[in-house]
């Protein structure tokens, strides 16, 4: 049995020869993302245009394993489009996006990307309104997500405990059996973050997590996200500068589809180009 596993390891197609890495039907091994060179995400020279409008223009970006990165930028800077490209929703016109060393995100489908370990939180909180909070978390939970497995699925005690833990983290224990559609806006945001946590991704893409939250809720979210970093890599897109200052070590500024500046918050705030984009014109 051990030898078999070893053979499997050596024969893994993404390890042996690069040209053997087939596209689309890539064998996805969870938790085996190759981060031996440091970064977990390589985005290089991505271009996307819609009817002549360049949403992403030669975007190049690297995210390190375990890093918490904030991305800011004015409206139309291409933040959401970038997330769409990384999660397989939009195909770029050119450029590459690799998850680890070997997974070509531009050729994988959404669910392949998701099960290889990238989780996404949408700008508008998207949860399953007719399902209870518990069921939402259960659906997101990291497990075999095939058709047949779902038909036969039985919740184990371990999984139940895990879901209860997450509900504690996101403060929704009381609402366990409430239909998610009835939650408040902030609670929906948290539920979505909770779903990201049960999904156990290696990389979290979080789009405007604190929009519509109270001050307290924002603080709690900041704690949550910083807690996640380290074990996971987190990319946060936000407008709320206070929030970013409270969590960010490194900030990337996007403008007109490419990276304008990158660095810690103080450098960014004093960068004349950033000031011009935000205040000028």
């Amino acid at each position, binding site marked *: 049995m051990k030898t078999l596993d070893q053979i499997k390891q050596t024969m893994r197609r993404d390890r042996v020869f690069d040209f053997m890495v087939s596209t689309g039907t890539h064998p996805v091994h969870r938790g085996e993302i190759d981060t031996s060179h440091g970064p977990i995400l390589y985005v290089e020279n991505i271009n996307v245009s819609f009817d002549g409008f360049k949403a992403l223009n030669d975007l190049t970006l690297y995210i390190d394993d375990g890093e918490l990165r904030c991305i800011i930028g004015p409206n139309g800077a291409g933040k959401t489009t970038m997330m769409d490209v990384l999660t397989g929703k939009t195909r770029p016109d050119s450029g590459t996006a690799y998850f680890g060393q070997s997974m070509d995100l531009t050729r994988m489908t959404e669910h392949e990307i*998701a099960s290889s370990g990238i989780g996404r939180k949408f700008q508008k909180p998207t949860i*399953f309104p007719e399902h209870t909070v518990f069921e939402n978390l259960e659906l997101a939970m990291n497990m075999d997500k095939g058709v047949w497995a779902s038909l036969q699925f039985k919740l184990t005690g371990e999984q139940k405990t895990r879901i209860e833990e997450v509900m504690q983290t996101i403060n929704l224990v009381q609402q366990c059996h409430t239909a998610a559609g009835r939650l408040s806006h902030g609670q929906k945001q948290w539920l979505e973050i909770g779903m990201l946590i049960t999904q156990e991704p290696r990389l979290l893409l979080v789009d405007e997590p604190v929009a519509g939250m109270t001050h307290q809720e924002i603080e709690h979210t900041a704690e949550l996200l910083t807690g996640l970093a380290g074990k996971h890599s987190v990319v946060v897109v936000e407008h709320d500068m206070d929030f970013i200052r409270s969590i960010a070590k490194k900030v990337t500024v996007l403008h007109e589809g490419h990276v304008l500046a990158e660095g810690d918050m103080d450098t960014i705030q004093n960068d004349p180009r950033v000031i011009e984009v935000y205040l000028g014109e």
Partner: protein
Amino acid sequence: MSFTHELIKLVQQDRVGKYLLSSLLAVSIMVPVLNLLVPESSSLHVSTYVVTLLGKYLCYALLAIALDLVWGYGGILSLGHGVFFALGGYAMGMYLMRQVGDRGVYGNPELPDFMVFLDWQELPWYWLGFDQFWFSALMIILVPGLLAFIFGWLAFRSRVTGVYLSIITQALTFAFMLAFFRNEMGFGGNNGLTDFKDILGFDIQHGGTRNVLFVVSALALAVGYLLCRYIVNSKFGRVVVAIRDAEDRTRFIGYKVESYKLWLFVISAMMAGIAGALYVPQVGIINPGEFSPLNSIELVVWVAVGGRGTLYGAIVGALLVNFAKTFFTGALPEVWLFALGGLFVVVTLFLPQGLVGLYQQTREKYLARRAV
């Protein structure tokens, strides 16, 4: 053992389902008894005509829950579900046609009458095997299932959703209707398949056979209901509803949405095929009219009237609308289309959850008031 256990648990958890299944059981005992044992003179006697009519309704109900599965739970509004129903029906019709043997008008032991009439010399290859019941039964499930698989595989893979999907399902059933109207297809053209003699050796016109068919239809409906209930209660069912409510979200948490939709569609098509197969021996004919887009759309109204996404709502809707149809087309034929059309409008405007939803709402209100 564990299967029975599961089944009992399934029924126990389903309050309305319990009523439904027990009334189905009651009906499937009462109706044959009232038909066969109670003398015709008695006011309690149920005529064979009514038995057949009720059997037909039960087939429609099975078709309705098949649609509810894809529409109510999966959010896939198929305007062409009649195509699966009719294909199941044709498969059964072909079996029944072969059973006629040399008792047809032309007395040809091999060829059905319409083929002799068209001067065909031998049975087309796709008719082979339909003299065997087991083969026909297999085809009743496989043919609709295969069509649903091919169509669904193409459609869901390329993310055809919403109204686009509805429109091309409608085009699908329309194309089938046109095709089956052609004599060259070898399915009896305009007239379809009819003049059946017997099924599994029993005279199809005989009252006893009619009662058996009725009971089998009731049984099929019960089994179909339980199957659907199992599916929607499983995690598969929850994923399907999740896809209905937020397709992208479901994808981004790692579900292969196309596969879920595809299998849901295939299961539903197979159920529709069985419904069609049970329908044909009871009404005694299957013709291309069953493919007409109007039939498929009418089916959507049954589900909408009853209330989608509940399974029992679909059954209630199918029974009520068809009862109304029988009544109107008999008593006031010119009013029926007005009534049906009005029903479409009224249900979509005022009863988005259907009658079942209305009942639940009033019940909740009542309970809430009592609690105060």
